[in-house]
């Protein structure tokens, strides 16, 4: 169904490898031996019913949780021992399922926190207004404005983040994450709470993001959106990977259908 796809699986290089990751919270196994890779330049969908471990998987990748066993590797570097902000600086950025903006900062400032991610400016640079400060500040500002323009909320740049509409807040989260100049952008249910028209716009935005050279990992519930925009899909259920493949294959996969629609006891 992904009729538009410059991505070619055969020549792909793995950007992120999730390698036999298991995560236990006490007696609960949230992720059970999950392995998959994300290739450079693709849009990978991560789907599954509620509680399947999708967001947990994100949290392992971004350093919020440490895996009990196994590891996630980004560009060949193990993420297990890295601090969260170091992982971001490596080139992995995310948005949040429940929006977590810096509410009382302006829209522009929110994005600039992201664009500052690689900045080396410290106290003395700021106090003495060194050339480095001026250079990074100007670059940060220009990039932030560019990103706001791209996600379509440039006109509201001086608004407080909390005063934006729900949809614009989601867009701002994407812009902020892109500000960190990631190689891999992880979107955690970006379309949650959107109406169909907004979802279409979001799909366009996600494609635009990929065309700008980013690799995208997308967690989403809405099947139409996932099928319409992704190159490949990984399906999780109860912390285990039950399927992986192109959207068309996934749609016809009996295990996936069973996970989503339930299984008739007699038939199985």
């Amino acid at each position, binding site marked *: 169904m992904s009729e538009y796809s410059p991505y070619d699986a055969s020549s792909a290089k793995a950007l992120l490898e999730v390698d036999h990751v298991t995560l236990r919270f006490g007696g609960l196994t949230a992720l059970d031996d999950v392995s998959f890779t994300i290739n450079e330049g693709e849009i990978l969908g991560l789907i599954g019913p509620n509680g399947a471990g999708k967001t947990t998987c994100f949290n392992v990748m971004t350093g*919020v949780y440490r895996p009990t066993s196994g590891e996630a590797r980004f560009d060949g570097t193990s993420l297990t021992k890295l601090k969260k902000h170091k992982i971001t600086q490596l080139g992995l950025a995310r948005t949040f399922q429940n929006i*977590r903006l*810096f509410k009382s900062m302006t829209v522009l400032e929110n994005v600039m926190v992201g664009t*500052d991610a690689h900045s080396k400016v410290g106290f003395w*640079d700021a*106090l003495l207004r060194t050339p480095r400060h001026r250079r990074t500040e100007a670059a940060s500002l220009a990039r932030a404005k560019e990103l706001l323009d791209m996600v379509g909320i440039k006109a509201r740049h001086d608004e*407080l983040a909390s005063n934006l509409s729900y949809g614009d807040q989601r867009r701002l989260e994407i812009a902020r994450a892109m500000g960190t100049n990631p190689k891999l952008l992880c979107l955690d249910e970006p379309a949650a709470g959107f109406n169909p028209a907004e979802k279409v716009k979001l799909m366009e935005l996600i494609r635009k993001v990929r065309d700008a050279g980013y690799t995208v990992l997308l967690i989403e519930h809405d099947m139409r959106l996932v099928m319409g925009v992704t190159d490949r899909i990984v399906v999780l259920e109860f912390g285990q990977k039950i399927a992986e493949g192109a959207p068309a294959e996934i749609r016809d996969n009996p295990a996936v259908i069973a996970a989503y629609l339930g299984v008739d006891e007699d038939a199985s």
Partner: protein
Amino acid sequence: MSRVGSYFSPLGQAMDAVSDGYKRQHPAVKALILVLVALFFYGLPLLRPPLITTNEIDFGGVMFQVAAFALVALGLNIVIGYAGLLDLGYVGFYATGAYTTGVLTSQHGSWPFFLALPVAIAVTMVTGVILGAPTLRVRGDYLAIVTLGFGEIIRICVKNIEWLGASAGIKDIPHPNTIGPAAEPPFKPGGLFEIPRLEWDGLVPHLDKEHSVHFLVFGATNAIPYYWLILTALVLVLLGDRLVKNSRVGRAWEATREDEDAAELMGVPTFKFKLMAFALGAAIGGLSGSFYASGQGGYISPDSFPLLLSMLFVAAVIVGGSGNRWGAIAGGALVAYLPERFREFADFRLLFFGLALTVLAVWRPEGLLPPRRTRRAKAAAAEIEALEEGELDEQLEEEPRNV
């Protein structure tokens, strides 16, 4: 908003209007306004305007204390207002700065004040890092408790360490070096030149040459030169604060305050920036403490640094408007000034001070001069409330028709 609040609200709106009006000005006009305001405050203890001047107690001394508090509040504002770290033991840093100065200039050395000052700042900053490195890993309430303990630990330690003068304290802390010819009492007052002060007869001012200030003699007789010194430090810190806040550092602080986990995931090394805020706040507290130690009295003791002082510092930042440097200064000045102004009420002065703070808290919970973000968020909330009430009214109007 409460009834007391709405009663005072025109005053609040007027303050907001002044603040907005200032922000709209051309940069050159802004700079001119700032210079005039600064000149006014430098001249204040000489102008001695009626009503403001405290007649019960030396006005120059009061102004010194006011500036010292404003400086402390400015430092604490970095910690509480910018980085969102509730520090309830700030007096510990104030004491560290004061005691470092005391030890170097009087107790165990005879350094000149201006040499001891940078050392005091450095020592306090290091203290801030030592305290911050383990404690900034805990958040919110826990940090408040740990810092609360720190303030007391410093006071109790000092009280029991003989080397630091124990409960007798440190006396004879030298004044800063006089600029110009030294004073030779009782014949030569010293200084480069003298400036007479104004005396008011009702609303009629006249020059009072009896009590002129000798520029720049730091001594026991006149506190005004000290006031000028600390005011200069305040202006410098204010400029530095502005430069650092309007940069990547300021944004990192605010992001950390708003949502620490999200900030970390957006590439902000939050621990580093929290520690930086803590150390800077400590350094400014130490700076103010150092001035305090070598001030007019030249005497410090553990009783000079009670826990109450920490509470007053926090009150200053909150009352002034946490997160706005001008608010912090206003709050610090107010908290130091009001008890002195109410001296004529003798035993009741602290009661009046408490009442004044309560009225302020009810009237303007966001502080005297809140940061722009607080005001904008409040305006948006009011707008939404108005919309909701409008809808409710419509529903109520429609209801009788349905019946």
